[in-house]
């Protein structure tokens, strides 16, 4: 890898300028924020030596919406829609992670049925996110058809989500102390039916990509991240596991009843783009297994924490008829769920990595400080070191394999 010798070449902040030639024949190229391969609004300011990239400087912040500041001004339940829009490919998983964080601080434990519902929706969100990730990854490498196939499957998932929560995605389904509503009748058999037909669709996608000569040439050996590098840069999730590190929070620090279910965690060996793709495809298959186990052992009982009087609003029939519940509802809606002072950090195994929430509360219904530890933010930090040495056309493949979402990266 050649070292930089001369002055810094800066394209300046002019988004559309394609290339500037400098005197020592290095070219500055700006893969701008509006670009199909960047999966959102990521800007890469790169320096090229012919076709080989010598320097890569990612610029973020084009989707910074101020979520953490907004959190300091919203009650805990009011913030749930904002968590949807973090990793907007798997909104239910974000909802669950946030609810678990606040519940950990408040010291309440949701009943088993609620835990099973949360595991179910988290795994469905994982399938949804990986399907899109792999469809778009295929598209990045030049294959258009897997995108269509995976989107068809995702539409079936959307129908299921809509039946459960009312929205296709951006569901805002969890509340502190439970979920918004119980599962509708007949929904579980429909989920099971979806899971039964999904392996066939995954096999079709695999048939198109996994042994495809062009796909192998484009992804094998590209963007290899070693174990030490991955840990040093704070990678989590499938990216870390593809590099050979066995870290899956569902197994290592089980939450929401994950320890009851048996599943394998795929670990890669070389940490290149192909390994990351294989890990994700296998994770989808494992998620199907988990969903089947959850449905087989689905518990009855309450779907929200009935003891959490100051946190979870009572059911509507009681609110409309009984004074005490009416006042309780009023307090929870206006003041917010009352969470004791303290701090907590909780991470959940999201499809993109480990989504963590660091919550500092000074009592009351509004957080004092909420830090969102976004997996995509940490996953992208490796780009500066990973990309130099590769060729320009490898950029699309590397970005696609890292499977990040700018919504949670910029918050």
């Amino acid at each position, binding site marked *: 890898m050649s070292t930089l010798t001369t002055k810094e070449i800066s394209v300046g*902040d002019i*988004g*559309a300028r394609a290339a500037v030639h400098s005197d020592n024949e290095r070219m500055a190229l700006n893969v*701008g*924020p*509006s*670009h*199909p391969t960047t999966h*959102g*609004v990521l800007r890469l300011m790169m320096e090229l030596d012919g076709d080989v990239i010598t320097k890569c400087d990612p610029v973020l*912040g*084009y*989707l*910074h*919406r*101020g979520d953490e*500041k*907004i959190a300091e001004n919203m009650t805990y339940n009011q913030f749930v*829609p*904002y968590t*949807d*829009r973090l990793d*907007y*490919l798997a909104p239910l998983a974000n909802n669950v992670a946030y609810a678990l964080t606040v519940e950990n601080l408040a010291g309440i434990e949701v009943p088993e049925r609620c835990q099973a519902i949360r595991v179910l929706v988290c795994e469905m969100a994982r399938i949804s996110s990986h399907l*899109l990730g792999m469809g778009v990854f295929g598209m990045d490498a030049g294959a258009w058809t897997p*995108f*269509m196939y995976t*989107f*068809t499957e*995702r*539409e079936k998932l*959307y129908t299921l989500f809509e039946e459960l929560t009312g929205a*296709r*995605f*951006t569901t805002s389904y969890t509340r502190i102390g439970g979920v918004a509503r119980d599962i509708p009748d007949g929904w579980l058999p429909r989920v099971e039916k979806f899971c039964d037909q999904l392996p066939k669709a995954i096999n079709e996608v695999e048939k198109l990509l996994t042994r495809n000569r062009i796909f192998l040439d484009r992804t094998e050996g590209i963007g290899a991240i070693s174990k030490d590098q991955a840990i040093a840069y704070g990678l989590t999730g499938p990216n870390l596991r593809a590099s050979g590190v066995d870290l899956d929070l569902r197994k290592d620090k089980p939450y929401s009843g994950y320890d009851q279910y048996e599943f394998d965690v795929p670990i890669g060996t070389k940490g290149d783009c192909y390994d990351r793709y294989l890990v994700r495809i296998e994770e989808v298959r494992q998620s199907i297994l988990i969903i089947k186990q959850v449905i087989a052992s689905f518990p009855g009982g309450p779907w929200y924490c009935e003891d959490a009087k100051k946190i979870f609003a009572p059911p509507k029939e009681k609110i409309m008829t009984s004074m005490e519940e009416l006042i309780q509802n009023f307090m929870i809606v206006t003041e917010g769920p009352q969470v004791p002072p303290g701090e907590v950090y909780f991470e959940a195994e999201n499809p993109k990595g480990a989504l963590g929430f660091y919550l500092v509360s000074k009592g009351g219904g509004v957080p004092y400080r909420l830090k969102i530890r976004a997996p995509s933010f940490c996953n992208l930090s490796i780009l500066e070191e990973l990309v130099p040495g590769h060729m320009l056309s490898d950029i699309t493949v590397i970005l696609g394999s890292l499977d990040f979402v*700018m*919504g949670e990266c910029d918050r």
Partner: protein
Amino acid sequence: MISNEVGYNSKVEGEVIVTKADAVINWIRKHSVWPMPMGLACCAIELMASAASRYDISRFGMEVMRFSPRQSDCMIVAGTVTYKMAEVVRRIYDQMGDPKWVVAMGACASTGGMYRSYAVMQGVDTIVPVDVYVSGCPPRPEALLDAMMKLQDKIGNESSVKNLRGKQETADLSV
């Protein structure tokens, strides 16, 4: 209202259509609107879903979602526009060739949505003239298709010939 519809009976009039230039130009334009997807956030996923097989935007001739502004007619701003991104959105709008339209998809692009914060531009119409606003967070693909149909109606009613002679009128941005 004078209809711009093309109507003829080939058995009577033969294979030659006599109609207004506007009718033909608008008919061609509205049935091949090539969107430039300014997919910024979650609405981009619904935009992709509307281009996928279930809600097939290709029925309207709009599946050609090229990211090149030079080759597109309509910029669909899908997602939250932050102040940092505003410059990029405006430049890409300027690079599109006439005639061009803008669809503000979703609550964030229309008015800033639920993000009333220091970093979010409260509506993309501050920097580009918007033709159709689509509400929803995110709007369902059907809502987007409905919006594109409304855009088609709007295109159908434009006086294109007048605009061909001079510069296309743009909205007054200083308001």
